[in-house]
């Protein structure tokens, strides 16, 4: 399972793809179990350069019966910094935030590697 993420150009906020638009909560993101559909969405996202920066697909895993990003870095993006629990998206709380906080999968983030290459 995959989701599509980016940072929004105008404010840098972490956003997720949902039906051709961008939403702020991971809980609202489109989930792709079909690789071709995911790549199609990624292609469409890349054609929105005045809306987002660096869209990329992330791998998901199951946590508390919900889907959560597999890489720790992506969970921090979806939640906020661990040193300030009231900053970032985690402040809102809820079932999905809890699931992300409890997730313990581990993998390198594919997006991070690409960002470093762009340096």
């Amino acid at each position, binding site marked *: 399972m995959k989701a599509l993420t980016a*940072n929004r*150009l105008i*404010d*840098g906020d972490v956003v997720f793809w949902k039906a051709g638009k961008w939403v702020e909560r991971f809980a609202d993101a489109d989930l792709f179990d079909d690789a071709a559909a995911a790549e199609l969405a990624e292609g469409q996202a890349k054609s929105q350069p005045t809306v987002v920066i660096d869209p990329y697909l992330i791998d998901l895993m199951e946590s508390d019966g919900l889907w959560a990003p597999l890489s720790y*870095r992506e969970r*921090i993006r979806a939640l906020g*910094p661990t*040193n300030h629990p009231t900053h970032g998206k985690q402040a809102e709380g809820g079932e999905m935030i809890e699931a992300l906080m409890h997730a313990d999968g*581990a993998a390198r983030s594919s997006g991070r590697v690409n*960002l470093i290459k762009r340096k």
Partner: protein
Amino acid sequence: MYQYDTLDKEIVADRSREFREQVGRRLAGELSEDQFKPLRLMNGLYLQLHAYMLRIAVPYGSLNSRQMRKLAYIGRTYDRGYGHFTTRQNLQFHWIKLRDTPDILDHLAEVDMHAIQTSGNCIRNVTSDPYAGATVEELDDPRVWSEAIRQWSSLHPEFSFLPRKFKIAITAAPKDRTAAKVHDIGLMIRRGRDGQLGFEVIVGGGLGRTPYVGPTITEFLPANRLFSYLEAILRVYNRHGRRDNLYKARIKILVAALGAEEFARQVAEEWAKIGPEGDLPDTELARIRGAFAKTAFEALPAVSETFEAAKAADPALARFSRNNLREHKKPGYTIVEISLKTVGETPGDATSDQMDAVADLAERYGQDDIRVTHEQNLVLPHIRLDDVPEVFARLQAVGLASANVNLISDIIACPGLDYCALANARAIPVAQQIAQTFADQEKAEAIGELKIKISGCINACGHHHVGHIGILGVDKKGEEFYQLTLGGSGAEDASVGKMLGPALPYDKVAAAIDTLVEVYLRERQDGERFLDTYRRTGVEPFKEAVYADAH
């Protein structure tokens, strides 16, 4: 501090106007991200994990109260009520929006501040001694030279597109508080046999993935020849520095490849071509020296009865005085270091309210002078001993009175994976756990000077290579692990730490530090610092203890 003239103000205001136009063109789609990225980086604006990060230059770590209040205002208005002081004496805001950045730059320009040369392959903000102009140890005021270098290097057309970023540190005291030996160029002011001022020039130090303590290429450069010599170094680097490999592009790689002697020879050859015409005229240096607002010190007795009585009555003030005050060059004054390492808080962070409080103290008691240290603390360099009890009480009221400068909880940590797009692992929570482990102030004082430095990736913004104990976050199949190094120093006795052994998981780091400290307390002799004991005993006793516990 240095007073901007009309030309300085115009440059900063122009730059702000230019960036507003560039942001407009980016949002309108006239510039692609690839085109815009170098432009925003030239104005200190990075994209990180959760938002943009704006790095604001604090030239040689020097601020006045008006500037500090402006930073507090920006934190409150455009960020989340706080800012992060960095290991390059700068300030970063972590929750910045692109659309707000032109307004923020305008606000900064109002107080003679900017974000120019806080990123990019140019000469970055000059690091200097945070005790400059106050410490009894210095031979000259290094801020004068720092400011001259700032003016020389700002928007320098020849040196705006170097092979890689370039960092200069300058100190005039034998006790190095700038990490000069691990900068691209470290300048140490020396006095020659004839009494003339000059510089020891160290080139090719650095941290990152290939750490080096820089070699000295000139023992004594006459002070009036500084700028032609800097130009010669930069020219040799600009010509021969590697542009084909990002990881081999810093000057340290060139110096190591050529050898210090050959590098020095090439610099000397270039220097001869440039000649004295490349130097700053004495009149210009005098102008810069004169543009520093004069500090008016009162004639005071060396001992303050008010201060002594307050210390005797308040053990907390006595502890603060032992750890956070430093000798001032004038009788009756002291240097007050403000720790931004309150146990449980994020190293280097200050809230907007705390920034305002420090600004108030500087204005009321401290000759309107504030410094940022490369160890992520603040300094009030000119406080009357009579006023220390009041300053301490006001710091206590805003949670800034931690008496732990240079102690084990005074930990440097980069923002790490909590914020940074390059990080592999978190640094802040590791620092917080260690600080909690050593929250007992009696114990921390008994341990004495111990510098722990933590980086969340090999780029080493947390200076882990030069920590007495260094901690490097690494990514092992997506999990956070931490490599420990021992025996590093960023001071005048600079050295690069040696790896202790296999990396440890996140939840084992604080306990491992505790073990290292136990070994030190067992082994130390005659008041040795942790670093001295390590240098005497070598790594073995430490290694045995940590890995015995880990298995």
